[in-house]
């Protein structure tokens, strides 16, 4: 075991899989000598050489499209998009191509590829280095969407994603990149895709979240417990396919649901979670389903800390739900 940050855990996962499987190749902007703008790929080019750690030109469509072709051939490319905000020039290659190749070819071609990208606020990145647009991918059949909130999960989920036979969009909460360390096993282990984690047990209200917001929820839950409210926190880990069992089991126990994320609220993935419950467990609900999200404005540079839901706001809604 070593104490690693989430960022180091990502690096560790990449190194572990590249050592184990020579089909694994990295491609992205500044991933080579520079080690990535966040240092996620630091040192890998020294070990694996420029053929397997491919510094790409400034073109996201090419990064994703070329990785797709490599995956069709049988490689296991891991593409890095420098910031989630910059994935859109390559969006068509995800929406029209990578996600649909297995289906449209009747299963004869497949794309075992991971697209890693940092997302979310917390680094004073303003409009274009802070966005959380996971909803664009959770609405896309043919991809899986994963987001870890801890170093342990980051390594295990990333290894599982690289081994997964489908396209995995791997969203790294950049606010958590260096925020704390955790013991992480050396070498090889996986955290299965499609399984949520109950990050904190509780019985009065269910908080559902993923990525950086999980920590906000835990903090709010702890504050709530001082007021005698017992809040359960579910860390989805995989957004698509969602772990419906864990979600429903919790809501069935607590009867109250609050979804917390950083995305623009309208049309976000929080709405899907709410709708799933409104479809399947409406009778158990003793309060409205609240969603605490970012505002429906572009991400604000100056007002970053107000834009992102904080524990105080979550606590407010916990009280509201419990006292409804």
């Amino acid at each position, binding site marked *: 075991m070593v104490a690693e940050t989430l960022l180091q855990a990502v690096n560790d996962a990449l190194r572990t899989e590249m050592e184990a499987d020579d089909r694994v190749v990295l491609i992205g902007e500044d991933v080579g000598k520079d080690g990535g703008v966040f240092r996620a790929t630091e040192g890998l080019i020294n070990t694996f050489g420029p053929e397997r750690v491919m510094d790409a030109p400034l073109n996201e469509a090419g990064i994703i*499209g*070329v990785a797709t*072709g490599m995956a069709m*051939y049988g490689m296991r490319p891991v593409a890095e998009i420098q910031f989630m905000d910059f994935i859109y020039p390559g969006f068509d290659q995800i929406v029209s191509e990578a996600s649909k190749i*297995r289906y449209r*070819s009747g299963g004869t*071609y*497949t794309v075992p590829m991971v697209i890693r990208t940092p997302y979310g606020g917390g680094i004073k990145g303003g409009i274009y280095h802070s966005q959380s647009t996971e909803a664009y991918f959770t609405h896309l059949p043919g991809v899986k969407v994963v987001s870890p909130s801890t170093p342990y999960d980051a390594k295990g989920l990333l290894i599982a994603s690289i081994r997964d036979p489908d396209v995995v969009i791997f969203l790294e909460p950049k606010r958590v990149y260096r925020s704390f360390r955790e013991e992480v096993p050396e070498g090889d282990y996986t955290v299965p895709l499609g399984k949520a984690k109950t990050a904190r047990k509780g019985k009065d209200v269910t908080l559902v979240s993923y990525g950086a917001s999980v920590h906000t929820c835990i903090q709010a839950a702890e504050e709530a417990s001082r007021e005698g409210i017992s809040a359960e926190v579910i860390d989805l880990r995989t957004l698509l396919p969602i772990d419906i069992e864990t979600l429903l089991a919790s809501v069935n126990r607590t009867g109250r649901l609050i979804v917390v994320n950083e995305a623009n609220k309208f049309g976000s993935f929080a709405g899907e979670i709410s709708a799933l419950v409104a479809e399947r467990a409406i009778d158990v609900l003793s309060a409205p389903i609240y969603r605490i999200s970012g505002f429906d404005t572009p991400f604000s540079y100056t007002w970053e800390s107000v834009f992102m839901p904080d524990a105080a706001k979550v606590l407010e809604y916990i009280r509201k739900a419990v006292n409804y």
Partner: protein
Amino acid sequence: METKLRMDAALFQVMDNEGNFDKELEPEIPKDRLIRMYRVMQTVRMFENIAMGLQRQGRIGFYIGAGGQEACSVGSTAALKDSDWIFPAYREPGALLLRGETVLQLFHQLFGNENDYNKGRQMPNHFNSRDKNIATPSSPIATQIPHAVGMAIAAKMRKTGDIALTYFGDGATSENDFHSGMNFAGIFDAPVIMFCQNNGYAISLPTRRQTRAETLAQKAIAYGIPGERVDGNDILAVYSVTRKAVERARKGGGPTMIEAITYRIGPHSSSDDPTKYRDKSEVDEWMKKEPIRRMRGYLIKKGIWNDDKEKELLEEIDAEIRSAVKVAEGIAKPPIETIFENVYEEMPWHLKEQMEETVSRYGKNYRGG
């Protein structure tokens, strides 16, 4: 300090409109192979005539033809090894047929029946053949270009000696994925051939409105890679130019872009009315350069073809196609469960739920009413 960049905008040709050919330039292709190439060209043309008829009768939903462009795909595919990869668009049934895919299989695709490799999920003319190393095309234009580059880079890493070739149109050169693919190909020295069928139009837009560049081949200069221009209705020229690019790629010389000047005789697709945007006189002019007639002229001049053989061939192909239509049309749709398969390797819970609900409504193994 001064560097001159130059490029031949000249069109490479081996034969004229009558099939008279330049002995110096004539490629060495065995007689049987030449006849096979000719057969495939004729098959593509006749296939199209029949398929367009089926479309008009409502027996298939759509058709998008290759009439007039047969020399492009057949001539270039002939220059590849069967282990090389092809990333087609939608006007290359010739590539599949030359590699030995059957006419019947193509009709399975058009009818979207259960033998279709695509399981009936795509519109007509989206042919793939995993078995023949022919990738799965989509409808968005140019998206296959970066795939071909990625495949070529991977093959190079694996030192298989295989290369990739991708087909696209003049319109596709405006798309972003052309820019992406060309640039990555250059930087990573990918053994890939970018084969552009410049048929003069992207639906209604003439090539001169697609770009201000005089030629499409000169776009290669932007990426530091060689660009070639070839008469795309001259199958020998197409073969030779592709061959040269293949050799370069196989020797580690990297990518080549080929612009083949050709013309689509028919409409863009069964939904198109070309009289809106081009004159009959233009079509007539191009009919003189039509590739099948030219190839026939060449074969006759070489003394390996004659009218009897022609008649026999056409009858054979016609029979093959008609029988294929009959068989393919009679085969059932893929069962309703296939809607939910192949989205992922393993079906997740929500798709299972949707499948169960659908099956409960229509019945198990339902194939349409």
